[in-house]
């Protein structure tokens, strides 16, 4: 029961990131919201793996963080001088 409350709190964080993704005035706001959402989703995957006893989710979280890093570097490069 307590772990369910933890998962719900993390999901509230993801919803807040999605709100900023919707109302962000500039493109940089939306990119920052995506960055934060990926990091929070890594935490959610680790918690889900702990609760449901499936530790393959840890590998998923590791690869997801690397892929999000590459994508954000591409977005930053585009904002700086264009592709």
């Amino acid at each position, binding site marked *: 029961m307590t772990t369910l409350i*933890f998962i719900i709190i993390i999901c*509230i964080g993801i919803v807040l990131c999605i709100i900023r993704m919707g109302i962000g005035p500039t493109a940089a*706001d939306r990119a920052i919201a995506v960055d934060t959402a990926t990091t929070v989703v890594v935490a959610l995957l*680790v918690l889900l793996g702990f609760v449901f006893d499936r530790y393959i989710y840890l590998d998923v979280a*590791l690869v997801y963080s690397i892929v999000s890093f590459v994508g*954000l570097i591409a977005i*930053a490069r585009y904002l700086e001088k264009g592709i």
Partner: protein
Amino acid sequence: MQNTWEGKNSMNEIIFKILLIIGILFNLFGCIGLVRLPDVYNRLQSATKCVTLGTCSILLSLLFHFGFTEIGIKAIVAIPLLFFGATVAAHALVKGSYLFGVKLGDQSVIDEYKDEAEKSSEDKKKMNKK
């Protein structure tokens, strides 16, 4: 569900619970700051610092729960990847958004990067003339 919250009350379990609660609260506060703060740079400050610390804390708590088994080692390998990845991406993003032309907020006091950005843009123009 095999792993429940109510476990043994050894020292490792207490550290595990404290680190897990710290991580979840920092994640939530970082996301609240992302919505409430006024400026791109302030938002990036809140989001990157709080959320990275929270997620690293959750990963470290798994090490205390499982010890040095397969799962604990995997969690501790994920910490430096996440730490350096998130912070380097945030730095590149804030530099890119400054050069893109995002203004600072109304309440900002000082802008130390202004001269350096102008200098770099002048260098770019010279390079283009050559």
